[in-house]
């Protein structure tokens, strides 16, 4: 990377951080639109899950099953918090790791599938997750888990690092900062991953798995690793969502969500790490913006989606960097 490009990247990151953590909260405070905190938290959380889907795209798999892991992560956190009395903060990484672990077991056989077959089997996986949640006693079946407490304070050696969320006047603000921070962290990790050797190996696998294995790359293992990271992100997104809703049902994440996660990646652009972030912002926020249009909402929303696809078939981010094909 040349120095000028490095400086450019640093500036871009600074602008992004300033926008997310300073400008947006200030703008919300100035306009009084506190409802945007929730909308933007949703965008951040869905973007995290979509980022996971993007990573599976990156190894050449069309993943329409992220809803399953968001649901599993959500339930894992909810069960740990309500049944076992864990702190939300501890349950969050554990939920993510649980998803990663489970997805390794599931991924080992299904990642052998390619193309539409993988897509469809992951689509079925979403439904399997929902039906499992309906059938299991620990998830409380059809009744779901409700009245989940909000995240408490984090204290280390008597010092309060993060105050309990119930102490905030507007409960959406702390969730916004949590979600935005997690999104920043996850995408920074994703960016680093893609630009490290592992990312290049993933790209090599996407382009040709046989060639990659001929040069000694353990393709089945790396596929599972990518899928586990992807599911980890799904689980994290799901778990924070559950904390916001303070409830989870088998239908909290469905096939529609799985499809949307995938669409976010397409819309942002598959060639760009930050594609899913932008895609989620446009698709999710777009729906919200159109809410005034009443019964025509879905019609306009889908119309815009089709137009975007016609104009920018390689994703929104391809607008700036025409067909460079680099992440």
């Amino acid at each position, binding site marked *: 990377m040349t120095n000028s490009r490095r400086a450019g990247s640093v500036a871009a990151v600074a602008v992004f951080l300033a926008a997310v953590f300073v400008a947006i909260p200030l703008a919300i405070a100035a306009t009084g639109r506190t409802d945007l905190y929730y909308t933007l938290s949703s965008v951040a959380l869905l973007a995290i899950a979509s980022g996971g889907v993007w990573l599976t795209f990156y190894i050449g798999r069309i993943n329409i099953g992220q809803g399953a892991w968001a649901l599993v992560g959500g339930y894992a956190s909810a069960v740990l918090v309500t049944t076992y009395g864990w702190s939300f903060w501890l349950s969050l990484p554990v939920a993510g790791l649980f998803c990663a672990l489970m997805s390794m077991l599931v991924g080992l056989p299904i990642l052998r599938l390619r193309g539409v077959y993988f897509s469809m089997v992951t689509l079925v996986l979403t439904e399997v997750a929902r039906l499992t949640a309906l059938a299991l006693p620990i998830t409380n079946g059809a009744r*779901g888990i409700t009245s989940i407490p909000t995240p408490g304070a984090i204290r280390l050696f008597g010092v309060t690092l993060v105050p309990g969320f119930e102490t905030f006047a507007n409960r959406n603000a702390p969730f916004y900062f949590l979600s935005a921070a997690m999104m920043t962290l996850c995408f920074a990790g994703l960016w680093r991953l893609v630009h490290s050797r592992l990312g290049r190996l993933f790209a090599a696998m996407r382009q040709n798995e046989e060639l990659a294995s001929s040069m000694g790359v353990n393709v089945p293992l790396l596929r599972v690793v990518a899928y586990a990271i992807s599911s980890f992100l799904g689980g994290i997104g799901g778990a924070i969502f559950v904390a*916001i809703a*303070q*409830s989870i049902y088998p239908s*909290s994440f469905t096939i*529609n969500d799985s499809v949307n996660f995938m669409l976010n990646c397409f819309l942002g652009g598959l060639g760009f790490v930050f594609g899913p972030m932008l895609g989620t912002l446009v698709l999710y926020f777009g729906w919200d913006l159109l809410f005034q249009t009443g019964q025509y*909402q879905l*019609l306009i929303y889908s119309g815009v989606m089709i*137009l975007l696809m016609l104009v920018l078939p390689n994703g929104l981010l391809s607008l700036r960097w025409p067909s460079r094909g680099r992440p």
Partner: protein
Amino acid sequence: MTSHSTVRAGLFGLASLIALAAAAPADAANPVLKVGFVGVTSGPAAAWGTSNVRSMQTLAEWWNSQGGVKIGDKTYDIDVVTFDDQKDPKRAIAGMEKMAQEGIHYVVGPNVDDGAAAVRPVAEKAGIIYFPYAFPKELYTKPASNAVLGMVASYQSGPAIYKYLKEKKGVKSVAFVAANESDPLSQRDSGVAAAKALGLTVVADKDTYQNDTRDFTPVLTPIVKLNPDLLVLSGVAPANAPLLIRSARELGFKGLISTETAQDAKVLEEGAGELANGFISVGGASTPAIRSKAMEEFIARYTKKFGEYNDESNTKVYALQYIIDTLKADPKAIDSVDEFKKTIDGFSAANPYLKDESAKLHYVGDTSFGQKRQLAVPLVVNEYKDGKFETLFVANVD
């Protein structure tokens, strides 16, 4: 180039659509009182929310055309603000946030369990009273206090129906079938409990179907073999009821069929024809036998505005009526949900939709929830016959 002109034409169409939609109501003679709706008006469950929204819009338009509603010493025009949550609890939260942002304190919906549970934190924090069409008791029992159940719950109507059928029709055995989704399964479980409590034999309580099922013959084949006296379609969507009835009858099922949810006569007639005769459901709360002139005018206006009436609106007309009448009883409640909650306990007003002039609007729910968090709407049990519902009996909750 063709693709460019397509794009341009599309954009133009879109712009005109947005303009069309933006050119909404408000000739601002009166101050506007906004009432919200958050629920599902698209996708497979669109019918539920649509009947809500349309009842609210019809009623608001009617009142506004008469010069508005007088609450305290001011007269308001009613504006219905709707949000389609696509049956997604995450969207439902966003919708409730929007309502809070608009300064709305009274919201009808959501239509399903998960959405109703998800919006609870927002509603309580933002001071919104909401009227879900979802049955989980946690929503209405303490410490929850901002939700008011908008209809009769299945665990209230079920026992009444089974008792009637046991005593009047000699039903001894009963089978349940439900979609494998939260709401229907919960309703099935409460139905099974109610049937067992009455001493009925439950011969099937585990049969489910996927929401993509269009042909119910395979689902019903094993159940019909058990030959129960009564087949209960727990929490059945209006779209599926005629299909289930038709499949059961065509398989030779001779017993009774019932459900605890409201249905639409036209849908039953088109979907099952005379096979649906004898089907027992909880009717909309203002069926022809008991409805007043006002209700008939409401139906006429609804039909004129939207082309076709939906029998579910017999029940769904009530929520907005209750909100406004409660506000009339205590104008301070317009900005204060706490006032509203206080007023609930002693509230009573005439029910304009029933012939019976002694009928009152009031809040109930002490038995089920330990506090008054349910709209009192008549529990009307119907039997379908040749395109119409005939009232079997009317009961009251509590």
